[in-house]
């Protein structure tokens, strides 16, 4: 099953930002979204993750198959790295976190409270969460923010491992991940023309 987006239009705060988007993402593939700041990449990813409704168009193969990672990592600073990760594993019905800890080089930090980690370490923990979800489609919003070169390489390796097991990844990023096999999709040509909305979407 593949993630398919057909003629999608998305809106931020009731204002359309992107329209006419169509692409598909098959198992084992990665798709990198590009576009200038404010072009609507985050809005598009939130729509695909199901956090907000699409203005028009269809998304198929999303829903329960998506593991979403936003700008914020969703970490509890009072809990340790293990506790944070175990919580998300349990939410998604899994128990094994050792692979995720190892994959993002967090074994040495396992008992540290998340609040005492550096920004890059927090990010690594946030990304390690993806590996415990067991979901096939990773939807990532700027996954490499505050990561150093070595950590970006770790992340690329994790994505590769995910693709090799039949997963897929959709990510918005500005930097080169070293994922040569990834397709690139530029959202800039799909900027929406302003339109007058007849209904207030807050009441839909």
């Amino acid at each position: 099953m593949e993630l398919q987006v057909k003629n999608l239009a998305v809106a931020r705060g009731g204002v359309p930002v992107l329209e006419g988007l169509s692409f598909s993402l098959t198992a084992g593939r990665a798709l990198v979204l590009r576009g200038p700041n404010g072009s609507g990449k985050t809005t598009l990813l939130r729509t695909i993750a199901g956090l907000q409704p699409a203005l028009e168009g269809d998304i198929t193969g999303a829903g329960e198959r998506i593991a979403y990672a936003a700008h914020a990592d969703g970490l509890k600073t009072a809990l340790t790295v293990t506790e944070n990760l175990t919580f998300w594993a349990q939410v998604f019905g899994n128990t094994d976190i050792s692979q995720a800890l190892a994959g993002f080089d967090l074994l040495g930090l396992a008992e540290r409270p998340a609040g005492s980690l550096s920004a890059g370490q927090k990010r690594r923990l946030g990304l390690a969460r993806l590996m415990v979800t067991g979901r096939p489609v990773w939807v990532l919003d700027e996954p490499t923010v505050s990561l150093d070169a070595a950590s970006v390489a770790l992340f690329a390796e994790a994505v590769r491992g995910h693709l090799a097991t039949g997963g897929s990844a959709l990510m918005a990023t500005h930097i080169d991940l070293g994922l040569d096999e990834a397709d690139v999709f530029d959202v800039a040509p799909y900027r929406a023309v302003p339109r007058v909305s007849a209904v207030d979407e807050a009441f839909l």
Partner: protein
Amino acid sequence: MIALLTRDLRLAVRAGGGFGLGLAFFLIVTVLVPLGVGPETALLSKIAPGILWIGALLACLLSLDRIFALDFEDGSIDLLATAPLPMEGIVTVKALAHWLTTGLPLVLAAPALGVLLSLPQGGYFWVVVSLAVGTPALSVIGTFGAALTVGLKRGGLLMSLLVLPLYVPTLVFGAEVARRGGEGLTVQTPLLMLAGISFGAVALLPFASAAVLRINLR
């Protein structure tokens, strides 16, 4: 869901978790009221059930904005919304965690603090019963208020104003149970009304809370 409940309880008792905030506030109210009213035992014992109920209600109100605000700030609420848990389940667990960390300690502390207010002899049992039956409604209604205002900067004021009128029926019947119990009168009618409010709120409000939370996350 159990994972979410244990996480919330664990967070509440860790440093900065806010466990005990409501309890401390409840203690302050019940300690200060006798000092402010003066050493008139007859007057105090007359107003004791009402004071205990108002103290419990305000203590509940104090900790409401923590229910979703912290999860919203660190982004967990977005991630929970995309997790396989139904939103209705998430808000129910959140309300339950709030009740366990705020409502239940108040119920247990009320008899001890009733002594400070010279609560009449027969009143202790009914104060505990009325709080035990009524505080779940306070938590569930409060969760609805918190869901309405999640994402607003300093939404605490707006939330208090929204929630306060919704708390009125619970307060009226809860305090009435405690008062009538203290005076040795029959408590059946207000107790049934209070239980009805609690059960109704627990049964219906999670759907409303989940709906407004979904809209607020857009």
